[in-house]
C-alpha cells in the first residue's frame, strides 16, 4: 500500500490540534482533532477505519447509545480485542474522526483492531457511507429535542435510508419493540430482531411520552399487548398489515434487584448480569449482547464480558460529593426522564432529587418537553421526595412540579450548580442515596463541580482508544 500523504497530514494535524487543545485547556479535544483532520482530508475517517481488520460497529438511536457502546466495548475487550471507542460521547462525524485520529499512529496505522462508535441518528447515513460497518445497533427512535433534530418521523426516515445503504453482509441489531425502528428495517436482509418478552416490568398503558401510536403502514391505532416503556412493547396493527416481528433473541425475564443491577434471562438460555439498572437498560444490555454475538463471540463469554461493564460519565455513575452518596442519571428527553424517574422511584426508593434543566443547544433550547414528562410520579411517590430544581431553566421545572401536584414545601430552586449539589447533600436522610437527574450540559456543569472537588476525573482524562 502506497503511503497516503494526505491522510498522514490529516492525522498529524489532528494530533497537533489535540495537543494544542489540551494545553490551552479547551476541553478534552473530543471533536477538534476530528474537525482539523477532516479539513485536511475529508475522507480521513473512512481511510482510517479501513485499517481496522475487525471492522466497525455503529450504535445509534435516541437513548442509550453511550451505555450500549460501552457495554459492547467492555465485552469485546474482556475477550482480548483491541477496541477503539468514542467513549467521550462525541458522536457526530467529527467526534468519531477525533477518536480514530487518537488511535492512529503518525503514519495513519490503527493500533486497535476494531471500533465501536456511537453515532447521532442524523449522522448515521454519512457514518455508514464512510465506515461500511459490520454491525449497526438501532436502539429506539423517541421524541427528542424538536428544535434541534426536527420531527421524529423525519429522523426515522433518515435512519431508514442509512440502513438501506449498508453493505450486504452487515448485521442490523434492531429493537423491534419500537414500531418506528421496526418500520425502518423490517425487510432488510441483515436484520437481527431483539425485544423484551418478559412481563416483569410493564406499564399499564401507553404513557404520554409515547409517540408511535399509529401503524406506520396504514395509520390505524396500534394495539399493544405489552408496554415496556414509551412506545416500546409488543404490538400489532388490528388490520394485520404490521406486526412486531418475533425476536431472534429476547429477554424472557427481568430481574432488577437494585437501582444499579439487572439480571436478564434470555431466550437462548443465557443469563446476563449487568451493573446498570432500570428497564431501559435491559434494552441496552440485550442489544449489546446481540451485537457481541453477531461478532462471533459465544454466549457465555459475551455474558461474562458484559458483566464487567461499569457505568460512567453521568450515566448511572455514583459519586460521593459534599459528604453524600449521589447517583447521576442523565436524562435528555421525555422518555428518558420517565424511565430514570421510574427507576429511581421504584428500584432506588429515592427520597432526594436534584433535577437540573438547561436550555443550551445540546439540551434543546425549547423546554416545553418538561410538560411531556411524568413528573406526577414525584407527587404520587410514597417516599414524598424532596426536589432541588436546578439549571438555567430551574424556574420552569419548579412550575412544572407545582402543576404536577408536588407540594411546594418539598421544592427548592437553586440555579448555581455547586450550591445545588450542596443543597442536595443536606436534603432528606443523609444516610440515603441522593439522585441527580441532569440534562446533558447540566450534567457537564455538575460533574465539573465534582471534578474540582476531586470526586470525579475529567472524562477526557480517561484513556481513548486503548484497552483498559
Amino acid at each position: 500500500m502506497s503511503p497516503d500523504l494526505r491522510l498522514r497530514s490529516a492525522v498529524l494535524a489532528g494530533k497537533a490540534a489535540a495537543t494544542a487543545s489540551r494545553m490551552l485547556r479547551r476541553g478534552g479535544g473530543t471533536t477538534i482533532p476530528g474537525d482539523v483532520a477532516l479539513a485536511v482530508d475529508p475522507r480521513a475517517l473512512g481511510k482510517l477505519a479501513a485499517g481496522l481488520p475487525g471492522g466497525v460497529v455503529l450504535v445509534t438511536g435516541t437513548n442509550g447509545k453511550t451505555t450500549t457502546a460501552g457495554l459492547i466495548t467492555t465485552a469485546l475487550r474482556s475477550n482480548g480485542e483491541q477496541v477503539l471507542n468514542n467513549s467521550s460521547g462525541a458522536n457526530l462525524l467529527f467526534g468519531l474522526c477525533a477518536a480514530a485520529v487518537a488511535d492512529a499512529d503518525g503514519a495513519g496505522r490503527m493500533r486497535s483492531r476494531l471500533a465501536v462508535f456511537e453515532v447521532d441518528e442524523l449522522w448515521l447515513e454519512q457514518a455508514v457511507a464512510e465506515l461500511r460497518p459490520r454491525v449497526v445497533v438501532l436502539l429506539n427512535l423517541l421524541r427528542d429535542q424538536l428544535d434541534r433534530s426536527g420531527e421524529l418521523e423525519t429522523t426515522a426516515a433518515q435512519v431508514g435510508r442509512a440502513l438501506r445503504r449498508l453493505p450486504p453482509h452487515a448485521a442490523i441489531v434492531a429493537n423491534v419493540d419500537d414500531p418506528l425502528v421496526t418500520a425502518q428495517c423490517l425487510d432488510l436482509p441483515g436484520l437481527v430482531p431483539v425485544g423484551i418478552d418478559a412481563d416483569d416490568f410493564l406499564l399499564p398503558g401507553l404513557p404520554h411520552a409515547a409517540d408511535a401510536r399509529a401503524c406506520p403502514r396504514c395509520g390505524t391505532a396500534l394495539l399493544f399487548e405489552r408496554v415496556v416503556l414509551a412506545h416500546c412493547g409488543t404490538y400489532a396493527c388490528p388490520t394485520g398489515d404490521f406486526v412486531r416481528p418475533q425476536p431472534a433473541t429476547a429477554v424472557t425475564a427481568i430481574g432488577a434487584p437494585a437501582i444499579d443491577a439487572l439480571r436478564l434471562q434470555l431466550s437462548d438460555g443465557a443469563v446476563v448480569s449487568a451493573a446498570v439498572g432500570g428497564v431501559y437498560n435491559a434494552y441496552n444490555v440485550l442489544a449489546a449482547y446481540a451485537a457481541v454475538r453477531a461478532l462471533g463471540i459465544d454466549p457465555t463469554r459475551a455474558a461474562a464480558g458484559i458483566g464487567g461493564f461499569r457505568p460512567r460519565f453521568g450515566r448511572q455513575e455514583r459519586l460521593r460529593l459534599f459528604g453524600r452518596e449521589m447517583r447521576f442519571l442523565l436524562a435528555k428527553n421525555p422518555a428518558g426522564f420517565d424511565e430514570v424517574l421510574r427507576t429511581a422511584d421504584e428500584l432506588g426508593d429515592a427520597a432526594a432529587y436534584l433535577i437540573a434543566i438547561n436550555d443550551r443547544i445540546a439540551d434543546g433550547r425549547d423546554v416545553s418537553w418538561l410538560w411531556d414528562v411524568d413528573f406526577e410520579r414525584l407527587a404520587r411517590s410514597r417516599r414524598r421526595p424532596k426536589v432541588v430544581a436546578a439549571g438555567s431553566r430551574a424556574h420552569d421545572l419548579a412550575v412544572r412540579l407545582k402543576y404536577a401536584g408536588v407540594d411546594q414545601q418539598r421544592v427548592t430552586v437553586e440555579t448555581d450548580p455547586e450550591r445545588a449539589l450542596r443543597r442536595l447533600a443536606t436534603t432528606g436522610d443523609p444516610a440515603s442515596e441522593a439522585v441527580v437527574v441532569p440534562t446533558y450540559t447540566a450534567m457537564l456543569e455538575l460533574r465539573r463541580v465534582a471534578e474540582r472537588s476531586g470526586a470525579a476525573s475529567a472524562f477526557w482524562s480517561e484513556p481513548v482508544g486503548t484497552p483498559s
Partner: protein
Amino acid sequence: MSRPLRIGHLYPDAMNIYGDVGNVRTLVQRARWRGIDVEVLAIGPGPAELAEYDLLFMGGGQDRDQSRIFGDFTEHKGSAMEHALEDGVAVLAVCGGYQLLGESYVDADGHELTGLGLLDLRSSAGHDRWIGNVVIEADASLQLQPRTVVGFENHGGRTRLGAGLHPLGRVVVGGGNNGEDGGEGVVRGRLIGTYLHGSLLPKNPHLADWLLATALAHRDAAGLVAALSPLDDSVEMAAHSRALELAMAERGRRAVPLRGRGAPAADGRRGWLPYNPHP
C-alpha cells in the same frame, strides 16, 4: 349549582408535539385551585358539537399527523367551530391550529390548502424556520398585568392578518407572525391564535386566567367577564421573569446555526436562532 367548566382538547393524541398538554393542565389546575369544577374532554375525528364546550384548545402536530387532522377538521368541524365562536366559546389555537382557522395555507411547493376561513388571515411557508425564545407585549384589549407574554416559537409558516384583525401582541424578541409587521398571533373576541407553543400558559398565568375567565363567562351565559379570585403566582411569575431575562439577553444577538458546521438538519431546513427582525 352550575355544571363543570368544560374544556375540549381537539385531537390530543396527534396534536401534542410541543408539550401542548401543559396548556390544558395549567387551565385545569388554576380552575381547581379556585374551587371551580372542571372537566377535559378529548375531541377526535368525526362530527362534533363544539358550542357545548366553554373552552377549546388545539395544539400543533408532526407534519404527517397534522395533514391527516386538517382533513378531518375542515370536513367535520368547520360549521361547528363557527357556531362555537358565535356562541362565545373561548379558543386557544397554537401553530397548526392557528393557521387552519384562516383562509388558506400555501406550502413550500406552492400548493394552497384551504382553511376554515373563520378569520381573515393567510399563511404560507417561509424560507427558513424560526426557532427561539419570544417575548411579546400583549394587545391592550386583554388588560394583562404585566403586559409581557413569554414563549417559544418553532415554525416555518408566515401569517398575515387582514385589515380588521389585531395581533395577540407586538413582538419584542423573536419572529412572530411574519417578521415584518411586528405582530405575533391574533386575538378576536374570545379567540386567541398564536405560534407560541407548549409551555405558553404555565409561564403566563395572567393569559391563562384571561382564557379561564372568558370560558366561565360562556358557561354562565354572562355578557360580562367577571374577575377571578387571585392565586399565589410567585412560582409562575419567577419563571416568567427568568424567561424574559433569558430572551432579552438574546435580543439582537447574531443568529447561530443550530446543529453547526453544515450538519444535516433532519428535514433539510436551516435552523437559526434566535431570529430577531427588530434589533
